[in-house]
């Protein structure tokens, strides 16, 4: 290194250290205002005065600043910011919510675990799946929602409670943690069957299938029409698909008391048998080179299965490919997973919000935001921003315009009352991987009964191992 280069390096180093010495960015204005708010607004009476009786008596939520770690990004984050601003400007308690994107679910999990390990409280409100809740509660990180929901002053009325979809609310209840309600649903997505109505009609069918037999017949007819190995149903081989088919065929992957797994029930066996048969007969196929939606849009599949959150992507691809191919766009829709039960049983999933254990005033303020956020009017606003499903039936009355513009969303919305949910057990993240492996082994020819027996045993061993931590 010659002398000039050395001095250039030295200057660069000094410059970087000078840059580093710049003061840290100032705290957000909202935070500062929130600190000043309590003094200005503190009152002993009024709409937000502390309760005088009940379990939350004397707790004053006024003027609290709460932080929400969430995973929403892009336009969804921008629209959420508008809703949050509405709350911050208009809530009578002077509560200030600071909604912060913290990456994805895994990033949030890492942050919560790191905060807990360092003895710090994570944000007052965090987002995560039901199995995350179980993990966090090993260290008693979370507050029980029931104390807020049932509170006579701050809780929900009987009418409001009944308005929440029961299956959504049940997901956050953990039998292995004294049935505490550790999560609350802000929104949901659903496993649905996407179908091409125009093509089905051309094949001689009047509409989408409602039973597995109809589904198989239609998929095989579409595959025959294409004759090149495509055309039928694009297989989805993960744990959510396995659970969805099990629910639709009248079974469950949880045992009766929701404390263990049952992957070898008759419904799961029947579902795997049907899907393997469809694969063998060329009525179903794997598409691994990309996402299934462009295949669906290009009539290389009459059916695909996936989350309802993919609706905008399907809509985009249907329009784009029809335009590229110089034809009218096919009519398409979403329907329930073909079922043997009298009514559909739909796999409905989604992350919950959780309140972390902390100062009671903050916990209560966090709850008041959730209560506001899940009110039908605000849910409707959030649904339009996010394309998620609401958690209260009453929201539908506020969505007529949106449903009219998005008919496929409306089709799925009508299925919300038929929800079932995947396990909320602590081991479910690992069990999901095991279920996907078993699903693939079956499709590659492994014995169905033996594979599902082994999966059940593995899943319960994983659960037992992790629950050993609780004891």
């Amino acid at each position, binding site marked *: 290194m*010659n002398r000039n280069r050395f001095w250039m390096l030295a200057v660069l180093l000094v410059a970087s250290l000078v840059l580093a010495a710049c003061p840290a960015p100032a705290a957000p204005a909202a935070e500062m205002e929130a600190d000043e708010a309590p003094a200005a607004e503190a009152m002993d009476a009024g709409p937000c005065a502390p309760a005088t009786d009940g379990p939350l008596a004397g707790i004053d939520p006024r003027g609290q600043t709460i932080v929400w770690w969430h995973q929403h990004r892009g336009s969804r984050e921008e629209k959420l910011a508008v809703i949050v601003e509405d709350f911050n400007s208009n809530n009578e308690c002077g509560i200030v919510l600071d909604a912060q994107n913290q990456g994805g679910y895994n990033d949030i999990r*890492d942050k919560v675990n790191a905060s807990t390990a360092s003895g710090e409280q994570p*944000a007052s409100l965090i987002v995560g799946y039901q199995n995350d809740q179980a993990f966090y509660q090993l260290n008693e990180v979370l507050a029980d929602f029931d104390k807020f929901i049932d509170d006579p002053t701050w809780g929900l009325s009987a009418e409001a409670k009944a308005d929440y979809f029961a299956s959504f609310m049940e997901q956050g209840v953990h039998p292995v943690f004294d049935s505490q309600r550790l999560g609350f649903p802000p929104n949901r997505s659903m496993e649905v069957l996407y179908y091409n109505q125009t093509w089905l009609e051309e094949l001689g069918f009047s509409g989408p299938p409602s039973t597995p037999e109809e589904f198989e017949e239609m998929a095989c007819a579409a595959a025959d029409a294409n004759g090149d190995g495509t055309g039928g149903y694009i297989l989805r081989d993960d744990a959510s698909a396995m659970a969805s088919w099990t629910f639709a065929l009248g079974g469950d992957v949880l045992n009766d008391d929701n404390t263990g797994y049952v992957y070898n029930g008759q419904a799961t066996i029947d579902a795997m048998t049907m899907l393997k048969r469809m694969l063998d007969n060329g009525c179903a196929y794997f598409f691994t080179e990309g996402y299934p939606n462009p295949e669906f849009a290009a009539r290389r599949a009459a059916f695909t299965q996936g989350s309802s959150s993919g609706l905008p992507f399907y809509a985009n*691809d249907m329009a784009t490919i029809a335009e590229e191919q110089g034809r009218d766009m096919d009519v398409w829709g979403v329907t329930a997973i073909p079922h043997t039960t009298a009514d559909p049983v739909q796999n409905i999933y989604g992350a919950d919000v959780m309140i972390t254990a902390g100062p009671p005033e903050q916990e209560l303020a966090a709850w008041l935001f959730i209560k506001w956020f899940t009110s039908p009017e605000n849910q409707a606003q959030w649904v339009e921003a996010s394309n998620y499903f609401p958690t209260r039936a009453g929201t539908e009355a506020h969505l007529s315009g949106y449903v009219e513009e998005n008919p496929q969303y409306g089709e799925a919305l009508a299925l919300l009352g038929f929800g079932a949910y995947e396990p909320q057990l602590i081991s479910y993240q690992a069990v999901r991987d095991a279920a996907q492996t078993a699903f693939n082994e079956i499709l590659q020819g492994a014995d169905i009964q033996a594979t599902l027996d082994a999966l059940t045993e593995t899943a319960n061993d994983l659960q037992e191992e992790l629950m050993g931590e609780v004891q």
Partner: protein
Amino acid sequence: MANSALAGQGGTMQETHPAARRAALSRAAIYLVLIVGAAAAIVPFLYTVSVSLMNLTEATGGRALPATPQWTNYVEAWRDAQFSQYFMNSVKITLISVGGALVFCALAAYAFAQMEFPGKSFLFTLLLSTLMLPEAITWVPNFITVSWLGRISPVPWINNWPALTIPFMASAFGIFLLRQFFLQIPQELWDSAQIDGSGHLRYLITVVLPLSSAAVMTLVLFGFVGAWNALAWPILVTTTADWRPISYGLLVFLDEAGALLHLQMAGAIITMLPIVVLYFFTQRHFIDGIATTGLKG
């Protein structure tokens, strides 16, 4: 005579042909392996470029080439990912990290290479053993450390440059890299420097570092790439966008419903450019550094 000469010539040719053929075959095999290796390295990059110019349907449908290149994807990616802000953050984080790494790695490497002190071998082995730890394992202990330091320090660490840079200023790899190079510097130079009245620090700055430009540039490049691409740790130690790096911007194109692959790839190309430019300027030093420090396999 002529016949025997021809026979002799023919015999020589017959003797040399198999060896020449073997050499040619061997060379062909080497080129084949190199071509396959080069293709394995370049194809993903070319595919990224191709997808970055597609529309969403083409990108998610697994196509190889765009029907019509969508150059506006780059503008859209830059705008949507707020790269202007994150780009500057990454520049600051990278400069501080690399600058700090040069200082601390050079000092530690010099001590391990040129100085004698009790427990030197043990400490060096201990240092090297930290290379075996997966990075993710260090996150929680490091987070606990920076949280604690933030509590006792006048400067906040979380949501600020110290947590993003200081943990990476003394990497075991950097110390090892420089030490290997410093070991090759002849002892006679240190003897001469001592005769001239030089101490260790002056000798390091005026003699050792200028002679080690290849290793230093290699460390700069590795440090730059590491700091520029970091994502998990910055997310862990920041809660706001004020100090988040450019790689965080790419997340905006990924959500539960799927990925805006075309924009994500355009963003990836944008974030990759500074590294490519740096490599272009330091390529010769980098190769020298790898070749002369025992890192080459």
